[in-house]
């Protein structure tokens, strides 16, 4: 094993920055945070061993500023940079700038990133190798006329996708030609905003496909292995919100075939470090290569819980030149894991983002529960960045145990001060079709459209709700009048008094 780095700069924020720093702390590596003006008190700044300011709130002036991040790495003496996901994670230019500055970029080579970064180039590569891809365009499309023509050829519905894309941004489903123009406009403008590159391409839309991806790990010595799959079919507006490992639909045979296909694709690109090959699987269990994500995925924890391997620590070892500690036959899946992405958004208002002050935070724990968070009680979630607050991940001996464990964990999760999708998840996890594992990428949107997620409560809960409001109203009234408080039968006055003193939250 080669000598590890002494200091790593994490060019990111939020939960993934903290996730990487946790790995550093456990490996005895000092971590360096970079932060924008609104992030001075962010958890990743508090958590790091060192922290340097890199500019104003807008990402384009801070977290996307290659020059400032490289400079911060130089000033702090960091030997390597971990990009997390998003921001500069898939920027080959950034990776090059790092190596030019003599800093190790923890990720694949710039060449592999460029190859995979352009989804159209990746599609061509895979097609040439005779591996299955989804019908669509090979090249980017520059004019609405081209788009219309190709769309007519392959037939509606079609998908418009940002070539530089990811995370559902710059992505639009187009049911008919009538919807094409506005979809084209929105996709390009969103892509421009998100990736500073408006180019999009076209793909045939499969009916009720499942989104299954294979985790890859490769070292600089030619070893490349797959670590099982992740089922990411649960998406809202083409954005993953809940992921599982293993996929309820895969058997060992299909897992092996998809895994080996993913490894072949990785080898085509001389891929190293952590990466993910995304596939769509149709109802007949045919799988088509979708894209290669040349980075650590948001949903990597479900793989970690099932295979028992810490992917971030492996990334660091690989970047340091170590050989993989595992061979393919050492990789064993145990049990099942599920991840739910906890967002600051308001389901009651079409999931609009809900930034603001976290006045109360109590996270679930206990058997099989993991919470990867980037926030804390008292933190004001800024509106400039992604609304992801935390990832709730659970493990169980099988899928049904994991589902039960996720239901339990969600029931314990408490966030106040801003709106979250926790209640949405509680209802989703109780839905029979989800429990049954009947998933596809349009499942959520169907549920929401059909209003079938919310079910009628047991009648006796009405009384409880009424009493709770009555208690809260009299509390407000008396707080207003400044006099004393009603007293529950069992609760002694003094004890009540003490507890109140402790909890004067401002309402926000």
């Amino acid at each position, binding site marked *: 094993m080669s000598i590890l780095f002494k200091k790593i700069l994490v060019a990111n924020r939020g939960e993934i920055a903290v996730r990487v720093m946790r790995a550093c702390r456990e490996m005895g590596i000092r971590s360096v945070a970079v932060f924008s003006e609104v992030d001075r008190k962010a958890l990743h700044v508090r958590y790091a061993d060192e922290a340097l300011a890199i500019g104003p709130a807008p990402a384009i002036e801070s977290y996307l500023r290659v020059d400032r991040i490289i400079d911060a790495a130089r000033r702090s003496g960091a030997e390597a940079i971990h990009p997390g996901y998003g921001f500069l994670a898939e920027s080959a230019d950034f990776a090059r700038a790092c190596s030019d500055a003599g800093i190790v970029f923890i990720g694949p080579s710039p060449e592999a990133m460029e190859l995979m970064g352009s989804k159209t180039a990746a599609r061509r590569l895979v097609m040439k190798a005779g591996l299955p891809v989804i019908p669509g365009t090979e090249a980017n499309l520059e004019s609405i006329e081209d788009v219309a023509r190709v769309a007519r050829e392959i037939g509606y519905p079609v998908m418009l996708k940002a070539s530089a894309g990811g995370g559902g*941004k710059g992505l639009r489903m187009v049911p008919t030609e009538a919807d094409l123009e506005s979809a084209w406009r929105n996709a390009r403008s969103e892509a421009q905003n998100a990736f500073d590159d408006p180019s999009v391409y076209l793909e045939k839309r499969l009916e009720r496909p499942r989104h299954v991806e294979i985790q890859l790990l490769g070292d600089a010595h030619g070893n490349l292995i797959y670590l099982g799959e992740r089922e990411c079919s649960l998406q809202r507006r083409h954005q993953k919100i809940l992921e599982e490992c293993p996929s309820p639909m895969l058997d060992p045979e299909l897992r092996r075939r998809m895994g080996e296909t993913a490894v072949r694709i990785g080898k085509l690109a001389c891929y190293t470090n952590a990466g993910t090959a995304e596939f769509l699987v149709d109802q007949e269990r045919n799988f088509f290569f979708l894209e290669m994500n040349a980075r650590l995925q948001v949903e990597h924890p479900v793989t970690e819980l099932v295979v028992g391997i810490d992917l971030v620590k492996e990334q660091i070892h690989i970047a340091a030149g170590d050989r993989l500690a595992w061979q393919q036959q050492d990789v064993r899946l145990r049990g099942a894991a599920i991840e739910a992405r906890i967002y600051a958004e308001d389901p009651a208002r079409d999931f609009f983002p809900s930034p603001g002050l976290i006045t109360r935070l109590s996270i679930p724990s206990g058997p099989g529960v993991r919470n990867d968070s980037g926030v804390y009680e008292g933190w004001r979630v800024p509106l400039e960045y992604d609304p992801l607050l935390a990832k709730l991940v659970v493990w169980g001996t099988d899928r049904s145990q994991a589902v039960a464990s996720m239901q339990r964990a969600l029931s314990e999760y408490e966030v106040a001060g801003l709106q979250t999708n926790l209640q949405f998840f509680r209802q989703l996890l109780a839905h029979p079709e989800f429990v049954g594992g009947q998933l596809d990428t349009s499942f959520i949107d169907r549920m929401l459209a059909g209003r079938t997620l919310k079910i009628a409560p047991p009648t006796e809960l009405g009384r409880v709700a009424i009493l709770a409001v009555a208690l809260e109203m009299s509390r407000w009234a008396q707080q*207003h009048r400044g006099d004393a408080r*009603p007293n529950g039968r069992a609760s002694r006055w003094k004890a009540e008094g003490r507890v109140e003193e402790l909890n004067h939250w401002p309402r926000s």
Partner: protein
Amino acid sequence: MNFELELRDDSRTSQHTLKVEASAEGQPGRETQFFIDGKPLEADWAEIRPGHYSILIDGQSYEARVQPTSDSRPGQPETWVVTIAEYDFQVKVRDPRARRFAGQALAHDGPLEVLAPMPGKIVRVLVGRDEEVVQDQGLVVIEAMKMQNELRAPRPGRVTEVHVKEGIGIEAGARLLRLE
């Protein structure tokens, strides 16, 4: 304290109004007794923290969290959301004191000011002055937290005023445009 509460569960399957009465309220040492539609409610409650109560009824243990709806005015709110396990209830107060506010909070006919549900940046205005819009028609696109969100018309009407233009930043609650 006396008031009427209109209880509606979030699945929209039930809705009814109840009279609630509180006695011996706020007299330290003495317990408050609540009556629902005249019937005393046999319950044992404890405040875990403001807005969060542990309630025992007939040996059943419940945790209820109460907060004013986000469109409530400060002071005495008129609509509350109660969360119990995975269920949400909307409770509207028919208490005279509260009704004063009701007008502002939930205007459902007549002119309607469309407010920004969150802070962000206006990236596109999709309608113009005097334009007729149908329900759910896109009005403006707001970008926040890296997402573009299309704000749709809550009901059909005519756009009589547009207060914002593309590129400007807005605070939550800012007036965007006026529907009549």
